[in-house]
Each structure stands twice: as C-alpha cells, then as structure tokens.
C-alpha cells in the first residue's frame, strides 16, 4: 500500500472526536467499531482507489489531529490538498463553530481546495431528534455561501458515506483536466528560459 500512487490529497478536518477517523474507517473498510470513546479507529493515512466513469482515481485520505493545541499547525496539513472534508458533529454546536474556522482557513490559504461540509453521527439524531443541535438548513445555507457541498452522514449505518467520497473523486476528475491544460503551459515557458540561461551561464 505504501507504494501506491496517489492522485489527489484529501484532508479530513474537524474537532476532536467528531468522527473523522470513523468516517474514513467506514468508507475504506466498511465497518464501524464500537467502543466507549470513539476517537481512535483506523489508520491515519489511507490510499483508496475509486472508479469514476472508466477511470480509476486514487484518493490519499489524510487524517488530521483535531485537538486545539495543534491548530497552529493545521496549515501544514492541508497544503496542496485538492479536497477537504470538514467534519462537524450534528449533536455538538461547538464542533460547527470549529468547522467554520477551518473553512475560513481553507478559503484564505488553499484556493484550489474544494470543501465538503460533513455533519456526522446522523444515526444519533434518527434515534432521538432532540439531540440535533445543528439545523440542516443552517448548514446547507452555510455550505452554499462558501460554495461547498453539504452531506449528513452516519459512520455507524454507513448512510451517505460512499456518496461523499464518490463526489470528491468525481469533482477531482472533472477539475483535473482544467489544471493540466492551464498550469503547465505557463510554467513550461518560464522553465525553458531559466534552464537555458543557467546552462549557457556555465559555459
């Protein structure tokens, strides 16, 4: 697995114990591990190939430490990411505040990074509606405002999890072509010049 080639980097962001790792675990291994305290399951890095149309795209999914003490370093994590899944706990309004923080950070620092807003632990709400602290429409409005996709998932039942990552892969596939045609064209010209300049310079 370590030698696997990865097309796109996807970072998981979100407050501690919102279920970032469970989400990845459910998606990659189709399982949900039950424990008294759910913040540690699965590995921190997974490479997952996804079939998109007639192509296979491999997502490198990066789990991140959500604790506030590492907040200052989060920028190092999402550098160069093509997609970010910003998670919040549907039953915890403070986690949504933190999600807003990350969205702001991403918008400031990584303009090429697509944002996916993901409310987790939907199964808890289906069990007891009064637990919901984040209104679906509020989150939806916020998502539209920032131009993000919005999902409500449950890692326990698996609902919406595959859809989320499928969407990530499809979006990447669609935008990848734009990058290929846009960027290297400009770069090449510069490179050629600097390269030759330096070569002749030696002589």
């Amino acid at each position: 697995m370590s030698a696997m080639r990865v097309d796109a980097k996807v970072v998981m962001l979100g407050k501690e114990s919102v279920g970032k790792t469970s989400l990845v675990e459910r998606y990659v291994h189709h399982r949900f591990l039950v424990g008294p305290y759910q913040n540690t399951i699965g590995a921190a890095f997974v490479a997952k190939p996804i079939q998109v149309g007639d192509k296979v795209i491999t997502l490198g999914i990066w789990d991140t430490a959500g604790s506030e003490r590492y907040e200052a370093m989060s920028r190092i994590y999402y550098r160069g990411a093509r997609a970010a899944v910003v998670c919040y706990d549907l039953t915890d309004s403070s986690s949504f505040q933190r999600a807003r923080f990350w969205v702001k950070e991403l918008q400031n620092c990584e303009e090429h990074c697509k944002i996916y807003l993901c409310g987790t632990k939907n199964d808890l709400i289906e069990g007891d509606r009064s637990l919901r602290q984040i209104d679906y429409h509020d989150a939806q409005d916020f998502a539209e405002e920032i131009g993000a996709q919005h999902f409500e998932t449950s890692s326990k039942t698996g609902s919406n999890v595959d859809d989320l990552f499928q969407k990530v892969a499809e979006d990447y596939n669609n935008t990848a072509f734009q990058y290929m045609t846009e960027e290297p064209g400009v770069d090449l010209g510069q490179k050629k010049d600097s390269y030759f300049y330096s070569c002749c310079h030696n002589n």
Partner: protein
Amino acid sequence: MMSQRSERRGIHLDQSELLCKKGCGYYGNTAWQGLCSKCWREENQRERQKQIQEDWALAERLQREEEEAYASRHQRAQSQPTITPFSKFEERKTKEKSSKVNTVTKFFTPSAKTPPKKDTTSFDTQSSPSPSSSSSRHPPADTDHATREFIDFLKPLKSGREIFKQCRAFTESMVYKRDMGADELSECVQDFYQNLSDRLQTQFKGSTEHVESVMDEVEKYMMTRLYKEVFCPETTDDEKKDLAIQKRIRALHWVTIEMLCVPVDEEIPEVSDSVVKAITDVIEMDSKRVPKDKLACITRCSKHIFNAIKISKKEAASADDFLPTLIYIVLKANPPRLQSNIQYITRFCNPSRLMTGEDGYYFTNLCCAVAFIEKLDGQSLNLSPEEFELYMSGQASPHWPQGAGASSPGSAALSQVHKRLDLLTGLGERQDRVIEKARQLESDLIDWTDEVEQKVQSVLESFPQETHNPTATTASGTTSAAASAIDSDNVENERLPPPLQPQVFAG
C-alpha cells in the same frame, strides 16, 4: 637534553615516521601522503591512469550514443522542441570533454611506466583524499556506485542513454550554481524533475508507474551526487535552525508522556521496544543521502509508533494519537540536523511523493511535530505559564508528579531526596553506635584479660609454693613440675569413675 626539549615542544618525531611509507628508504612527505616523491608519483599516476581510462570509456560511450541518437533525434525534433537545443549544447559539451580527455591521456600514456595493476580497488578508496583536481572529476566511491547503478537501471530502457546524459549534464551544471540561494537551486532541480517526467510521460504513453520508477532512480542518482553541495548549504541559515531546535529539544527534556497526552504505555516491553526502534529510525534519517531514503526512515519510524499505540490501546491509531506520540519521539530522539533534513527533503524530493503519498503524510506530520516543538508553551502541555517557566529554567522537575501529595511536582522530587538523605543519616548514626559498642567490647575484653591475669597472680601469691617437690629443683621447667605436683597431689584419682565417652545412637 636536546631531545627532551624538543619533546616538550611537541615536535619530536620518530625517525621511522619520516621515512616513506613504502619502505624504500627515502624520506616521505605528508603532502604526498607519507610517500617519497618517487613512490608518490608512481602511486598517483596509477590512480590517474585509472581515472583517465574510466573517463575516456565514458566519453567514448557518450559519443557513440550521441551519434546513434543524432539521427533519431532529427526525426523527433519536431515533436519535442524542448530538448533539441539543449541536446545540441550537450553534444558540444561531450565532444569538448572527450577531446580534452584525449589530450590528457596522450600526455600521460607515453611517460607512464604502467606499473602492474594488482590491487586497483585499494587505490580506488585512496583516491578520494587526493588533494589535486576538482571534486567533480574525483567523485567518491559511493557516488561512483550510484552512477553505476543508475546506468544499470537505464540500460534496458529505450531512451536510457538520453536520460542518463541529461541527468549527468544537469548534475554537473549544478556545481557551478553553488553560489545560488537554496530556493533557486531547489527550483532548478524541481524544474528538471518536472521537465523530465513530462517528457517521460509522453514517451511511456502515460504509464505513470513506469515514469515514477524512472524518476525515483533519477532522484537517487542526482541527489547522491549533489548531496554535499546542496545539503545544508552555506547560503541558508539551516545550520542555525538546526542548532536552535536542538537546543530547544534539550531544554524540553522534562516533558512527560502525560503532558503530551501520548497514548503509549512504555511499561509494556513490546511497546518500549517499538519506541526505541522509532527513535532509532528517526535518528537514522540523517545518515541517508537520497530524499526518498530519508522519507523511508520517517515512514518506518511512524509505523513503529503506530505499532506502539496499537499495543498500548489495543486499537488501531488515529491522527489524534499519532501526532502527540511523534512529538514525544522527536523530543526523546533529538534527531541530528533535523531542520536541514526537513529543508533538504522539501527542496529536492520529487514533489508528487511529498504532496500526496503515504511518505508525504508522515513527513507532514514530522513537520507539524517540529512546528509544535518550536511554538510549544505551557498551554499546549496543560501547564500554567509559571510552571512552564519553572521547568524551562530547570528550577523544578516534574519527574515524580505523583509524589506525597505535594502541591508542586518539583517538591515531590525534593521530598524524595530528603527522605533518602534522612535514611542515610540514620544509617550513619547506627553505624557510629555499632563502632562505639565494638570499641567498648574490645576494651572490656582487654580489661577482662587483665583482671583474670591479676586474679591468677593474686591466687598464686596467696598460695605460694606449698608443694615441695624434689623434681622442682631441676632447672628443666617450673610449670611442668608444678603440673605434676598438682597431679601427684590428687591422691583419690583412682577412685573416680572413668570419663564419659561419646556414644553413637542409631537413628
């Protein structure tokens, strides 16, 4: 007298040390590695000869492939406009080089007496410290090895020669850019990677695995050769940063597992084993030359960390467990030249690997760990600013945090020390008492013997010589005489029962 004085000055040398190492009887010279002029010339020539032959072989091969490639390139020139001008330049350069080598060879071959080549490998290793010539012409043994491996790898490839030529030319051109800033160097190398991989991409018709395996080898070859020039270059403040982080980590020696919330239980032997391995791996990173190998060290280190967490928690680890543990490992390991290594990898590693793959993930975590250590304050360890200051200044230490209900963990340690000191003084007192008693016993014993002696004396005096035995008059010895006198006095001896004999009872 003379030799004594010179010895004191430290310039005394043994006669044998001055002689030629070859043992020819002439005097040697340190500039000639302890050989005499004659032996040195012989030795040096042999090395040069070999070098020249190698160079020549390489030049010849390059020329050959140049000619081979020439025709085909003309056909392809239209489709690949980016290489043509460059390869023309390259062509000129190789020709120039080969002609140069030719003349040098001519210059050397007739005069050389060509001593019998018996042990070329040993001379090969000696060649590296040779003082003359530029370093690019005298690559050390390991870069030679890298070149050979690279050539071997490229041999089966259709365009292998061209790749090799371009890499070689680029690597050599880098030597002239030594004065450039590290970022510019990095840009050059990254541009080269990008250009080459783009070209390979079209060549291999989009087989990315293939391109990547070639790029790995390219990176390995180039960075092995360039390592000395571009690792921690003088134009940057990498070294200063290295020292700063090293000092910082040393100052943070008191940070405990509990403060960082590391979910690792080092009491378990298997876990502490993994921790040790992780520390070893992250330290080993400095000894590698190729960015990819350095990254592999970090990945290995991370795997050991995951293992340690898994055993401690009996669950697989997430990033929330991993990052603190990595920080802890870095603090414990204090890896040499940490910043230089990170900068070097960032600048010269293949970008695709660094940005997306698994290695990249662990490397990013390492960068985070370092950033955390740099910025670390009391708050990030759940300590008050005062406590943090105390620990940093070394006035207190948290290493017995559970000690005796003391308010600050530092006093717990102190109370431990006091307790031990008390115990020691108690022991001392008791020992003193024992010694005193022993002395008293000794004097008592002396007194007692004196007393006994006195008593015997007084008894002897009060009963003086009442037995008058005729034998006593002889000078042979009064004591034996007295004994026999006592015996003889004992008249009723025969009437006593026989003395008790020890008897053995069965059972």
